[in-house]
Every structure is written in structure tokens, then in C-alpha cells.
């Protein structure tokens, strides 16, 4: 059996008792460029955050390369939404990309010459080398996203999670980023991209995960990206699930039994 890059097992996440992800189960093989697709508020970003242990989960577990996150953390890179950070922070483009060379252990040390070279190299891969000394607030949306991608490249990971990298950027940047992603895939990396544009999804990805609070389908894009599945994904939430969610929230009821 082929190794899975990501295995999500019965994952349930709730915010203040209101479930945003119900019993999600799927596996994705190594080396896929996967689109995580669903309408607004479907829990796509939450899914990534839950996998990366950035948000508490109510039940289930996830495995990366068949291991727990903490055992493979150095092989995983996560790219947050670009609006999640303060772009007025006193830092240059190069500063941000160099952050990709830090790991939790190496934070007490200075970066080595080799680390600095890798950062420069990654900046040139996203064609932002000319901007290396610019303050980050001077960048356009597409350029900001490319800086984030460069930082992720500098992490030299095997698996990449990207939260909405195509949101609010120009067409040229989008093309450039998708080329980089395809190149990364050629090098054997596994990439997961939260995406909401159905038009481009079919061209970009070779695997899709369709979610809307619950999992609709997961699999190779040709078999999974069907009109029927999309209708179900975008056809709204299941009324019964939403009602139950409201009930849990108003009564502060746990979605799993809590053991004292």
C-alpha cells in the first residue's frame, strides 16, 4: 500500500460548542497537489488549523506521513492567510523569508551562512529578489503572497499546507504561484491548498477534498469533481446538523463525552 501524506480520522472540531467540522475522514497519498474546496464558512481553514494543532479539536486524530505532527514537524510547512499578519511590522522581505529557516530548536541561534543563502535562493524562485530590502508594507497582495510562499520554500518541507494563497491577488501572481506549486509537486512534495474558485480548481489540482462542515468527497479530481458532488458541497449545510449544532451551542453541551 502506498504511503499517505495525510490521514484524517473522524476529526471533529467545534468553536464554543458549535461544531464546524463533523466526523471528517479521508486519506491523501504522497505527492499530490490537493485542493480543499468548499463554500465560505465550510471549515476549510479550520481543517488545516486542526491538522496543524493550531486549534483545539473535540475528537478524532490526524496523521502526517503516518506519524503524529510533533514527530514530523520539521517536514511540514504551513502558510497562513496573508491577512492574518501585521504587514506594518518592522521587517523587510528578506527578514520574513529568513523566518522560514527557523525551527523551534534553532531559534536560540543565529542563522548560518547556508540558511541565508537558502533564503536568497527561495526569494529568487518567486522572483522577488529585487525586493529583498523593501519593507513588507510596500508590497502588493500578490507580492505578499509570494513572500509567504518563499518563506515556506525556505522551510524545505515535504508537505505544505496553504490557506487561500490565491485570495486577493492579481492574475500574473496566481499564474506564477501555481507554476511554483507544480514544480514543487514534480520534486515529490505533497501540497494542500485551500481554494474556493471552482473554475480554476479543475486545472490546478490532481486531488480534491470537498467539505462543507462534513466531508462530501475526497479523491482524484477526475472522479471526484463531479457536478453531483459539487451540488452537494455548495447546496448548503444539512439542516439537521445545523439544528443540532445550535442546540449544542446554546446548552454548552460537549460533542464528545468529557472524561473527568
Amino acid at each position: 500500500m502506498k504511503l499517505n501524506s495525510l490521514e484524517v480520522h473522524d476529526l471533529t472540531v467545534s468553536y464554543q460548542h458549535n461544531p464546524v467540522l463533523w466526523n471528517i475522514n479521508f486519506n491523501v497519498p504522497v505527492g499530490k497537489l490537493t485542493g480543499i474546496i468548499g463554500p465560505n464558512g465550510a471549515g476549510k481553514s479550520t481543517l488545516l488549523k486542526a491538522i496543524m494543532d493550531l486549534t483545539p479539536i473535540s475528537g478524532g486524530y490526524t496523521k502526517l506521513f503516518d506519524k503524529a505532527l510533533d514527530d514530523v514537524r520539521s517536514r511540514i510547512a504551513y502558510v497562513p492567510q496573508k491577512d492574518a499578519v501585521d504587514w506594518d511590522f518592522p521587517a523587510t522581505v528578506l527578514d520574513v523569508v529568513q523566518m522560514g529557516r527557523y525551527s523551534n530548536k534553532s531559534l536560540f541561534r543565529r542563522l548560518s551562512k547556508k540558511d541565508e543563502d537558502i533564503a536568497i535562493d527561495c526569494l529568487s524562485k518567486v522572483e522577488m529578489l529585487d525586493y529583498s530590502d523593501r519593507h513588507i508594507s510596500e508590497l502588493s497582495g500578490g507580492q505578499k503572497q509570494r513572500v509567504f510562499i518563499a518563506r515556506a520554500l525556505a522551510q524545505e518541507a515535504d508537505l505544505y499546507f496553504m490557506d487561500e494563497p490565491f485570495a486577493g491577488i492579481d492574475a500574473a501572481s496566481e499564474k506564477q504561484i501555481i507554476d511554483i506549486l507544480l514544480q514543487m509537486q514534480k520534486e515529490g512534495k505533497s501540497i494542500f491548498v485551500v481554494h474556493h474558485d471552482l473554475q480554476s480548481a479543475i486545472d490546478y489540482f490532481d486531488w480534491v477534498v470537498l467539505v462543507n462542515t462534513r466531508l462530501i468527497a475526497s479523491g482524484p479530481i477526475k472522479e471526484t469533481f463531479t457536478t453531483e458532488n459539487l451540488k452537494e458541497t455548495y447546496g448548503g449545510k444539512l439542516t439537521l446538523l445545523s439544528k443540532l449544532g445550535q442546540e449544542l451551542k446554546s446548552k454548552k453541551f460537549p460533542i464528545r463525552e468529557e472524561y473527568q
Partner: protein
Amino acid sequence: MILWEQLTYFFSFRDANITNVLIGTLLLGTAAGMVGTLVVLSKKTLIIDAISHSMLPGICIGFLLSGVKNPLYLMLGGMASATLAVFLIGEISKRSKIKIDAAIAITLSILFSFGVIMLNVVQNTGNPNQSGLNDFLFGKAASMLQEDLLLFGGLCLITFITLPLFFRHFKISLFDPIFAQSIGVKRFIIQSIISFLIIITAAAGVQTVGIILISAMIIAPASASLLWTNNFKRTMIYSGVTGAVCSIVGVFISYLSPKMPTGPWVVVTLASVSILSVLFSPNGLLVKQLQIRKNRKSILRENVLKTVYKLKEKIIKNNQGVSTELVSNYRPTAIRKVKKALKHLQRKGLIVKGGDFWTLTEHGTQEAERIVRVHRLWELYLQKFMHLPSDYVHNSAESIEHIVTPEIERSLEKIMGKPELDPHQQKIPYQK
């Protein structure tokens, strides 16, 4: 002259008391400035006020329990109640609908009121040691003794060791906390370290600047420094230096009149630096104003030049040039300003004066033609790509013509080809 003598005496290190005060202030100002960088960048400036104000009840309890004004007990008490405040704010905002700003306000006012009541109780105990306890409200640097210096200096030293050690943790957590967590940095630990640093800095500062004003000492240097640099490390260094210099100036002023508290003078000095920074820093108000004025002048000059060119193109058919009055008739600006602009164009060699009439030099003609060309090409561009009717394109082109760089001009020419006429059937001048 007396001021000068006092100044030299103050900084001569001959007086042991003053030396204590100087060293203490220097350490405190630096520490407060540097820690302030973390606070301002984590956008938690409100919490400092809560921390400092809520130290008062702890200080009073420390005094009641020990019965002496030993700074160690007072500081331990103060830090304990400040820690309680941080904990309360966190729990209230996490567990109830009350938002963080309201939680800060509630905690601050309750603990501070409690502290003021206790201060009154202490003052009525008749314990002779209590005199001077209310100096903690506005600070009295002059009262710093050798043992105080050891304690406060020690607190500052903890800051000086912790900041470089966790420097990179702070940098990535403050810029992108989610990314920091994704590589395994524990958010709670970093936040706790930052809170701890704020608490010990505030504790170290209460004797010098007092509970009420210590927050300004932490926030002001960092806020001012951020206006001067785009580098995290440099922000921290500038902030430390600003904090140190301003505190010493403040302490010196209050030394001149011993009845005055130190805190307000330190804060007034810091405020002056902040105001100057807002005005004079690279992105400051003054620079912006100058840029606006410069733009206005250059637009006027280009418009005057263009008018001379157009008058020659259309109205004046002879070769004698145009008078100042004629140019002014075609510009909505005051004639005084038009005159100034013409003089400037003359100095730049774009126009020459013969008798009462202005004529364009060759260089001037080229420049005027460039402006007219950009204007007319832009009108065409708007018509073609933004589908604007021809009577709508002039006003936009009127301002665009002054900002188009040679690079944009080249692309504009490339996109539009080399059309002969603009939307108003006027000839577009090209370089020969």
C-alpha cells in the same frame, strides 16, 4: 550659569546618591524602552496600565505584612498583584462575553481603587515608616538608595538577559503568531514571558516614575522608534536609547526642583520626542506636507509650460511669444504664482524672455510636447480601455499627465501605437 554648575555636578559622579539615581534611571529607561517594543508590536498597550495600576494594593500589602519600607517586600507584593491582574484579565475575557478592553478597564479600576483604600489605611496606622509610600504614585527618583538600586538594577538585568535570548521567538511570534505555532513555538509560553517582562519592568519603574505614569515610559519610546526604522532589532535599540536618554533628562529636571515628582518630567520629555518623531520622521507629517507642496508647485510649473506651448500652437500665429498676462488669463492660479513659475522655468532653461514676451527653448518645447503627448495618449487610453466618452476623459488626463514616468510613457505608447489624433481631434506631438 547656575544651571551649568548643577548640570556638571549632577553628571560628575561625585555625589554617591546622584550616581545611584543616574545608574538606576539609565538601566530602567533602557529596559522599559526595549520591553515596550514587544508590547507595542503585540498591540497590548492597554494591558500595561492595568499591570502598573494593580501593583498598588500589592505594594500596600507588602508593607503591612513586613511593617518596613523594604523595597524587596514592596516589589514582591506589587508583582504578585500585577500577576493576579494579568490572570484575571485573561480569564474574564476568555470565559465570559466581556471583551478584552472592558476586562482590562474593570480589573484596572477595581484593583487600583482597592490599592488607594489600602494606602489610606496604611497612612492611618501611625507607622512612622509609611511616609513616602505615596511617592509610588508619581515616582521619586531622588529617593533611590544603594539597596534599591541593587533590586531595581537586578530586575532590569533579567530583562537584558531575556530579550536577546528569546529575540527570534519574539520576532516571529509578534509578526506571525500562527506561523510561529506551526513550527512548534508554544504561544502561551512566549506570551507569559512577555507579560513577565512587563511586570518586572513596571515593578522596577514604580520608584522612579510611579505607578500612574510607568505605562507611558514603556509605550512612548517604542512608538516613536517605530516611526524611524523598518527593522525589528533597530526598533528595539532605538527604543532603549530613547528611553534611557529621556529618563535621565527627566530625572535631572526633577533634581533641579526637589519638590517635584520625577514621573511627569520623564513623561513630558518622552512626549516631546514622540511629537518630534511624528513631525520629522521619514514618513512624518512634515515630510508629507513638503511632498504635497512640492507636487503642487511642479504641477503648476508644468501647466504653465503647457499653456505657453498651447498658446503658441493655437492662438499666437506670429513668432513673438506670449506675455505673462496672457498666460495668466489661461490659468486659474493667481498671477503672482504664475510669474514665479515662469521665472523658475526660465532658470531651468525651458523658456526665454525677449522684451515682454516668453518663448519656448528647444528643451522647453520637447518637455511641453511630452506633457501634451502623455495627456492626449491617456485620453485615448481611457476612451479605448475604459469605454469613457470623449467629453469625460480630459479631467483625468489633466492630473495623470504630471505623474507618468518615462517607463509608463513608453508602455502607453506601445499599447496605443502611434495614433495621430486624440479624442478631440487634436494632433499628438511625437519626438522627431
